[in-house]
């Protein structure tokens, strides 16, 4: 079980601190695959990275991350090391280039496991078994990354990242660089690994809501460094409460509509700058429902079991 409370992460830039995560609180239950979606720059990737390893220019400002009743020392790179890979793991966005090009894959994995104080040879049978689940033969362990296709590398990385049965897996844009057929396979693999208990819970970061509809149990929508809405996938798709979620869904293509005849609606305007974000609801400038109260910041509250929204009009909307 993952519980994040009031997490704040800023980026150091020459112009000042970019508040990429500005007080984010949510939880992910055991066995839950949570989709994390939003526009570019909304903070979803920052959140994913913050849970495992802060980049150099990312600055921890406040908040707490608790995984299985242990507080993760996310601000301390060294203290975080024992938790990485074994408790929290990641399938990175750049899975195609995540393997050292000059080492045979099997040897690289052995060296990594040895460096973590584990014996690579004892884990070898399990490694081969899991590769087989994703349709890879043990031969790939004797190959260099360049000998594998992009999709194969992606699957190798998925197997490696989950080899130690982490409690939490962050899948960062894992389907973005793949063709539709491979996307489906990867999405299926994520669910399969959860069902087999290799991973307890999962956060799937993506901008692709269609993929989330296939794999996620719940979906969390972010906007401009804050949470907008979190709900079970069905609820998000069928009865979204936040106006941003509804506009986001509305801008997706639907089967059977010819877009030569009908323009796909987008969301007018652009997200606010996170260098000096406005007070109150951050979506209010683009929101069709904005009214006087929106100058105050709406709290992220539960309007139905498992359904949280940060919008003053959410209640009225969910019912209406």
């Amino acid at each position: 079980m993952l519980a994040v409370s009031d997490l704040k992460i800023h980026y150091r830039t020459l112009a000042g601190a970019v508040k990429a995560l500005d007080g984010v609180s949510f939880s992910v239950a055991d066995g839950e695959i949570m989709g994390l979606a939003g526009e570019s720059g909304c903070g979803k990737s920052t959140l994913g990275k913050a849970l495992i390893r802060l980049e150099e220019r990312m600055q921890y400002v406040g908040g707490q991350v608790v995984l299985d009743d242990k507080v993760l020392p996310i601000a301390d790179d060294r203290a975080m090391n024992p938790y990485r890979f074994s408790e929290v793991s990641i399938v990175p966005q750049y899975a195609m280039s995540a393997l050292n090009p000059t080492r045979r894959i099997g040897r690289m994995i052995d060296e990594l496991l040895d460096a973590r104080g584990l014996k690579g040879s004892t884990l070898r049978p399990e490694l081969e078994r899991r590769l087989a689940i994703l349709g890879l033969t043990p031969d790939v362990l004797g190959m260099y990354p360049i000998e594998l296709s992009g999709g194969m590398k992606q699957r190798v990385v998925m197997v490696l990242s989950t080899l130690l049965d982490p409690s939490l897996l962050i899948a960062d844009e894992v389907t973005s660089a793949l063709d539709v057929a491979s996307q489906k396979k990867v999405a299926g693999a994520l669910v399969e690994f959860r069902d087999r208990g290799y991973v307890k819970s999962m956060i799937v970061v993506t901008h692709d809501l269609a993929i989330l509809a296939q794999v996620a149990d719940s979906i969390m929508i972010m906007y401009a460094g804050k949470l907008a809405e979190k709900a079970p996938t069905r609820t998000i798709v069928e009865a979204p409460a936040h106006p941003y979620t509804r506009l986001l869904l509305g801008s997706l293509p639907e089967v059977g509509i010819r877009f030569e005849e009908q323009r796909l609606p987008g969301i007018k305007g652009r997200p606010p700058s996170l260098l000096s974000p406005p007070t109150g609801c951050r979506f209010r400038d683009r929101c069709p429902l904005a009214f006087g109260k929106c100058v105050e910041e709406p709290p992220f509250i539960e309007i139905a079991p498992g359904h949280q929204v940060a919008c003053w009009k959410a209640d009225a909307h969910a019912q209406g």
Partner: protein
Amino acid sequence: MLRYLARKLFIYLLTFIVAVTIDWAIPRFMPGNPVDALVSRIALMPDANAALTSYFMAAFNLDQPLWQQYLNFWWALLNGDLGRSIMLFPTPVTTLIGRALPYTLGLLLPSILLSWYVGNVVGALAARRKLLDNTVLPLGYLLTATPYMWLGILLAWVLGSSLGWFPLAFGYDQSLKAEWTWKFISSLLYHWILPFASLFLVALGGWAIGMRNMIIYELESDYANYLMALGAPQRLVRKYAFRNAMLPQITGLALQLGAVVGGALVTEIVFSYPGLGWLVLSGIQNQDYFVIQGVFLFIIVGVLLANLIVDVVYVIVDPRTRVGLQGDAA
């Protein structure tokens, strides 16, 4: 792999033929005639001069047409004959080169290999320590921008002439006989230090800067980030980064060889060091076609051979080139 090697060997053979042809042609473009110089040194009666000149011209085959000389040259070369020196007649050029070669190799091999190794280690260390980086970087730029002979002259002036710590010239103390005694060997080493240091230092700067930049690049690469996200210790990540950063440095070594050899020739002249550089200088001053040809031939062969070795080593250490050779793997 074999096809790759065969192709490489073919290219090297072509390069060799072209280089040797240029090597043969260049001394003959020089104004004047070596035999005139030789004869004028003997300084006899004018009519005796004429007879001697035609005798020597025939002896060196210089009276034949140029194309014939060119063919003769290749024929002799394939039989391992580089001709006889004109200035030190009748010593064979191979003997002269054999005498000078150990000095040049003794300078070149340690300075190339040590500067490459030390430069890579220093650069890799600098990439992760701010304090070291702040000294290595400017110093490296300064060294690598220094011409070989200029640093040689500077060292000779400060450490040799002003402070008197090191000898200024020659391969060993001229009062000693060349023999395998400790006294002679220590004299050899003593005379070797300054020319070695000037070659070593100039090359060191370039390697250190290159390695520092490559390491920083590798440490920011995706595979390094992934390893760190999986909690790999810094030791492992740096080991990989060092190894991968080494690859461009190996190519760099091949590219640098020619420049270092050129630098060594000039440095030998600065220190009157009895190597190939010194030999080729006196060859040029005396218009000794055969000595000039012979020395440059050695340098051509040496540089080509070293490049070939680097090519083979590169294929062994970088799997990506190997896969490329076999065509795309399925």
